[in-house]
Structure formats: structure tokens, C-alpha cells
């Protein structure tokens, strides 16, 4: 297929070609950047939480009655929940992992700094949870070394207290961050006031509270029961029995004690989805943008090509009459489109990088993975060819006899 005549024909209608080049370039810049953001958000949402999200249930308990006895209520509720068929573990907690809400405290690997006033203490920030001895079963986290809490280590904690904890369990990442090694069993951790606690367990990494936090896996578990009257429960069940157990809890638990209110009984998956809703909605909105943009650009190409075919009906007929095959005509439009698209993607590649630089600069998004650019080029080539195909086929179907007719 000789390109030169096609090119010179294109140059005769420069404006039209330039407009299409621009349109394709901007389309490419938007869809490549959107696709890149989407892939990053999907990767973020698909990180391994490290605990058994699909088989967990959470709810809140608010004590309010005049005769509410927190310790009795918690003990009865915990025991009752643990006795339900299908339940693997129950723990109380003040906040839930992956809920975008929780506590963080600073810790240190050595207690010495606390003796010297103003010493530059190397502080470790960890997301903390106060849970009972069933914690590992209730979360479904994997113990790498050590043990879970002893029941006698689990005591009631008032909101204002200055004691640390008799023992702590930490994730591997937190152990490495604190001690430089995951072999931290038996080591001592110091809280912000210099109180020590022994590391009795190391668990596989689990995610903490805030999905946008860089140190999401720096999780520290402490034995205890949050002081009332408000606390949350986490119930983990055998796979496949979540909804059934949830129904039982809904139907039986609230009535067992009228001095406290049970609220928001929900599958843990909902809590996690809520935390990721920004990412989730961004993903959907971007995908919608890409789909609409691709359709608009394709429709534009189809519209322009169809129009050109109609305008050039007579010339096409003439070309056919003097010996051009159907393939020649089809090829003409395909090559024409390919030339314009190529111009578009070349400019588009530059624009894509420029848009990405703006995003990196202004919103500290990640730098574009270069492989997305050739992928974008390929997609727009295919898209352009597909869009032009129908009008081109129609053009190739124009009978040579048309040439003999007057308009």
C-alpha cells in the first residue's frame, strides 16, 4: 500500500487530521493514566489483610443501663458467643483493624532513653489493639513463634491508665522495625513512659487500622479488655457459616441483656469495603471515564470516516472504475486512519508523561510504569482500525458504476 498519496491527501485537509491527532493524543493521555491509577488502586485493595476477613463478624456493644455491669456483661457475652456452634474465636476490642479508625502509640526497643531527659528517642509507631486470650483464633492470624496471651494476663483497662501490659504480640514487620530481626521472642518492648512488656508472640503480618498508612502492618496486640461502657466484638466462624452465625447473634444476643445495646452487627467484609470506598469509587469512576472517552473517540472516528466515504463516493467509484480493487479502497482508509492514529499516539505518549508528571507532582501519585505507554499505543492503534473498519468496508463496497453517474 503506497503511503505517499494517502499522506498528500491527508495534508490537503490538514485541519481535520490535526484535530483527530489531538483528540487521539488526549484520549491516550487520559486512558493510560486512568488505567495506571486503576491498577494501583486494585493492587492496594487486593493486598493480603493477613487475617480472616471473610469469616469474621463485628459489632458494637454500648452499656447504658443504670444496672449495667461491664465486667459481667463482657464475660457473659464473650462466653455465650464462644459457645455458639461454628464460632472459632471471640475477642473484645476498642477498634477494628482495616476500619480506618484506631489507636497508635510510640514504643522503643530499649528503656535507657527514658532516663536521660531530652534524649533523642528512636520511636517506633505501632497500631495497637487490646484483645483477649482468644485473639489469634478470633482474627485467624498465623503464629510464627511464641504463644497467645494467658487468660490471667487479660485484665480490664480503664481509658486513663499508665501501665503498659504484661506481655505483647507483634507482627513480623513490627519486630523487624523494632529489633532489626523477626526473632524477637522474649525481648522487651518499652512504651512511651518507659514501662516494659515482654514480647511473647510473633505473628505473620496482619494489616492495621488505616488503609493509607505506610506502616499498615506495624500491629501490636496487648492483652486486656477495653473499659466500657463501649466496646466492640470480633467473632470468627468456620468458613461458610458467617451469615448463619450472624443471624443467631442478631436474634439472640440483644435480648440477653437489656442494660446494653448491640449495634451494627455486620460482616467484616463490609467494614473493609467501607475503608476502601474512596479507592473503590475512584476505580469505578475512572473505568467509566475510560469507557466513555473511548466510545466518544471511536464514534468520532466512525463519524468522520463515514462522512468522508459519503463525500468521496464518486472518487471511490472512479478509482474502482480505473482498476483499484476492493482491497485497495479498504486499505486506503485503514492506512489513512493508521497514519493519523500514529501521529496521535506519538503526541499522546508525550502528553501521557506530562499528565503523569502533573499527577506525581501535585497529588504525589506514583510515577507511571513505562510499559503502559506501548500498551496504550497498541490499544489506540487497534481501536482506530476497528472504528474505521465499518466505514472502510462500506467504501470498498462502492460500485465502479457510481463513477459514471452524475451526482
Amino acid at each position, binding site marked *: 500500500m503506497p503511503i505517499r498519496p494517502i499522506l498528500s491527501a491527508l495534508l490537503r485537509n490538514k*485541519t*481535520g487530521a490535526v*484535530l*483527530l491527532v489531538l*483528540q487521539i493524543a*488526549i*484520549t491516550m*493521555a*487520559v486512558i493510560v493514566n*486512568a488505567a495506571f*491509577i486503576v491498577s494501583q488502586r486494585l493492587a492496594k485493595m487486593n493486598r493480603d489483610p493477613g487475617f480472616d476477613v471473610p469469616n469474621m463478624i463485628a459489632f458494637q456493644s*454500648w*452499656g*447504658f*443501663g443504670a444496672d*449495667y455491669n461491664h465486667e459481667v456483661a463482657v464475660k457473659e457475652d464473650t462466653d455465650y458467643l464462644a459457645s455458639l456452634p461454628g464460632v472459632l474465636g471471640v475477642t473484645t476490642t476498642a477498634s477494628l483493624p482495616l476500619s480506618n479508625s484506631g489507636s497508635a502509640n510510640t514504643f522503643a526497643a530499649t528503656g535507657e532513653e*527514658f532516663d536521660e531527659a*531530652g534524649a*533523642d*528517642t528512636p*520511636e517506633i509507631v505501632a497500631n495497637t489493639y487490646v484483645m483477649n486470650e482468644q485473639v489469634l483464633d478470633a482474627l485467624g492470624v498465623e503464629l510464627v513463634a511464641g504463644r497467645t496471651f494467658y487468660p490471667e494476663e487479660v485484665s480490664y483497662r480503664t*481509658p*486513663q*491508665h*499508665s501501665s503498659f501490659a504484661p506481655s505483647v504480640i507483634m507482627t513480623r514487620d513490627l519486630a523487624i522495625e523494632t529489633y532489626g530481626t523477626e526473632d524477637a521472642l522474649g525481648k522487651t518492648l518499652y512504651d*512511651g*513512659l518507659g514501662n516494659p512488656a515482654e514480647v511473647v508472640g510473633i505473628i505473620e503480618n496482619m494489616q492495621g487500622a488505616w488503609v493509607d498508612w505506610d506502616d499498615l502492618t506495624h500491629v501490636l496486640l496487648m492483652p486486656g479488655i477495653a473499659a466500657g*461502657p*463501649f466496646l466492640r466484638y470480633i467473632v470468627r466462624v468456620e468458613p461458610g457459616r458467617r451469615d448463619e452465625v450472624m443471624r443467631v447473634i442478631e436474634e439472640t444476643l440483644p435480648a440477653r441483656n437489656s442494660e446494653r*445495646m448491640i*449495634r451494627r452487627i455486620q460482616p467484616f467484609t463490609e467494614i473493609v*469495603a*467501607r475503608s476502601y*470506598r*474512596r479507592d*473503590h*469509587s*475512584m476505580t*469505578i*469512576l*475512572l473505568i*467509566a*471515564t475510560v469507557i*466513555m*472517552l473511548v466510545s*466518544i*473517540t471511536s*464514534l*468520532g472516528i466512525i*463519524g*468522520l470516516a*463515514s*462522512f468522508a466515504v459519503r*463525500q468521496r463516493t464518486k472518487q471511490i467509484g472512479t478509482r474502482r472504475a480505473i482498476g483499484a480493487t476492493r482491497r485497495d479502497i479498504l486499505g486506503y482508509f485503514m492506512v489513512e486512519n493508521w497514519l493519523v492514529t500514529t501521529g496521535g499516539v506519538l503526541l499522546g505518549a508525550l502528553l501521557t508523561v506530562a*499528565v503523569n508528571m*502533573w*499527577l506525581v507532582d*501535585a*497529588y504525589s*501519585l506514583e510515577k507511571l510504569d513505562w510499559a503502559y505507554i506501548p500498551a496504550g499505543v497498541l490499544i489506540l492503534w487497534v481501536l482506530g482500525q476497528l472504528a474505521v473498519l465499518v466505514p472502510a468496508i462500506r467504501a470498498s463496497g462502492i460500485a465502479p458504476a457510481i463513477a459514471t453517474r452524475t451526482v
Partner: protein
Amino acid sequence: MFLYNLRLAIKSIRRNLSLSVLMVAAIGIGIGACMTVVTVYYMMSGDPIPHKSDRLFAVQLNNWEAPGPFDQDRPERLPELLTYQDAMNLMESDIPTRKLAMHASGLTLDPANPDINPMLTTTLFTTTDFFAMFDLPFQYGGAWDESADSSAAEVAVISRSLNETVFGGENSVGERISLDNREFLIIGVLDHWEPVPRFYSAHNNAFGETDDAFIPLSVNATWEKQNFGNTNCWGDSPIDSYAAFLGSECVWIEYWVELDTAAQQDRYLSYLAAYISEQKRLGRFPIADASAEIHDVNDWLVYNEVVNPDFRVLLGLAIMFLVVCLINTVALLLAKFSANAPRVGLRRALGASKATIFKQNLVEVGLIGLGGGMLGLLLARLGLQGVKAVNLGQYDQLVRMDQTLVIAALLVSVVAALIAGLYPTWRICQVPPATYLKTQ
């Protein structure tokens, strides 16, 4: 003349119906996508209290410890909230026209009516000026006064929706409600009040629902209800009791002042500086250049990054999208008008001036723009429903279009279409009549 042009335009649109439909669709989808994002963005970055947003200030004091800044990543930032002791001390100042301290809690409401289940109420512990300062509308009754603050009176102002749930919307002033097993006398019922964004609590949940009940902050000095919002602490003195917590360096109280004049603002800033020096003498505010800052409402919303940056990215992409749609329209119009060239040539030969042709074609373009704009509005409506659906309730208050937006959308689409149509229209006017007469 206009009607004649209109008739011509309609004729021309019908002559190339599919192309015209394509143009309307392109503008419509572009405007629709753009308006969807703009609406959310506009509401998100809106001024929640326009008539006095430049007179209301959030107060910040840097009581943080020496080695590390409050925000490790952005050391220039001060804590957003105050310690209880600082809030109480600042209440002594007479410089602000009004002032308030507050924090939120969750309390369980036990309705007297046995048919209604106990429910959680988000309750704001605050001071008397809250209502006048933020212009809260009352349906029944009114706010408490300073004596209620000083005597820690057990009184409550409740929201309209809570009043509807518990009292069926009747005037409940004088009734009592039981919150966490303590009886409060209702002295006021609010009317509908829902600032978007919720500028107070901007640091925490700027698009949450308005609170259900309001109670004097002084009540909680002895009631010891836990703070619902953020609490950040430093210091190495143990906090073993609620009293110790109140006297600690924990920041958890939000503090606002109303300063009506620039002079008042200056005086207040010097007052804050003096306060910090005084506290330094007492051994507090360890940072050498510990400072105070005040931010007015709009500043405060920016400071707290209330606008989800994702929507800025989306806004940029949506604008590029609209540009694509317009380029698309220009290309289609060019093609369409070039097909019209022989007809224009004929008209020109018969005596139509360039200006007449220009006007004629512009009417057609304007019509396409209007069609596109209306389609765009329809699509934006759908788009907003979509945003609402995928946001799982987070931005429900944001997905509303007001009149300004509707008019803006129509205007933008017509103007955009006219701009897009200018070049093709100009081109067609350049048609030399003779060329096309010859080919006929």
C-alpha cells in the same frame, strides 16, 4: 430573521441527522462527565457558612514536645486540637465576640417510649456560643446560656431528626431525654441544619451527618464520657485518672472564635502569643518557637484537606475529556460544513453576505450546543446517582445539583459549542461563491 435562521438550522441538522446526533452526543457526554465531577467538587469545596466564614476562626496552639513535631511528615503543622486546660484558659479571654470549645461523644439514648429501641446519639459537648456563632436555626426553644455552662446544667439541644424519631416532630422543649442513663432537659430543638462540608470537625469527618444532641461541655468534666474524635497525647507523666487526663498535654478539644474586625484578629493573636509566653513560664510549651495560629473557615477546610484529592485528579481528567469532546465536535462540524459548501456558495452568489452566513451557521451550532447541554444535564444526573452508588453513602450530601450548577452547565455547553463552532463557521464563510457554482 432569527426565526428564519432557526428554520434553516433545523433543516440543516435534519439533513445530516446522524452526524448532528453524534455531535449532540459528544457534547452531552463531555458535559455530563464534567458536570458530574464538578458538582461533587463544587459541593466538596463549597463555603458552608458564606456570610461569616471569614470571621470564624479555628484556634491552634503548639503545645507539642521538643524532639518531634506534631506531624512528622509536615513539621510546620500544629496540632488541630487543643488541650482541655488551654481551651478552658482561652475561654477567659474577652477579645473574641464569641468563642466555643467542643468535642464529640457517643451516648446511648434510652427513649421513654418502649416502642422505640435504645439508639446511639452522636453528642457534641460544647459551650453556649456554639449556636449563635454557627447560626444554628431553632425550630422550638433555644440555646442554653452562660449560667448553664458554669453550673454544668443538665440541659440539651437536640437535632430536628432526633426530635422526629423520639417525639414525632412535636415541640419537645421541657421534655426529658435519657442519655447514658442521665436525664437531660430539652431546651431547644434545631431546625434542619447541615453545613456541607461540616467545617467544624473538618479534621475528622467533614462529610458526616450533623450531630444528634448538644450538651454543655462542663457536664463532661465530671461525667467522664470518652471523646469520639481524635485524641493525641505526649508527655511522660502518667495519666491515671480523668482529672489527670483533663490536666494533661493531650489535645482533643476543638476551639473556635468569632473575630469581626482585623484589629480584633490582631489583638487576639497577640493575646495568644502572650498566653504561650505565660504558659512557658509555667513550664509548658517546650518548643522554643511555639506559636499559635488561627484559620478562618475556608482556610481551615483547605488546611484539613477536606477535598478528596482523587476528585481533583478526576476533575483534571474530566476537563481533558470535555476538550476531547469539543475537538471531536469541531472535526465533525468542519466535515459537515464542508459538505454544505456548495449550498453556501449558491447562497453567497445570490447575495447573502458573509455575516449572514456566519449568523446562520452559528445558530445551528448554538442549537447543537443547547441539545448537548440538556443531554449533558441528564447524564450528569445519572452520573451523580452513579457516584452516590459507588461511594457507599460517603458523599450523599454532595451529589446534589443546585440551580447555579444547572444554569452553568447549560451555559458552558452552549458557549463551548459556539467556541467549537467558530472556526468551522468562519471557514465556511470563506467559501468563494464562484468555485462551487462552477462544479454544479
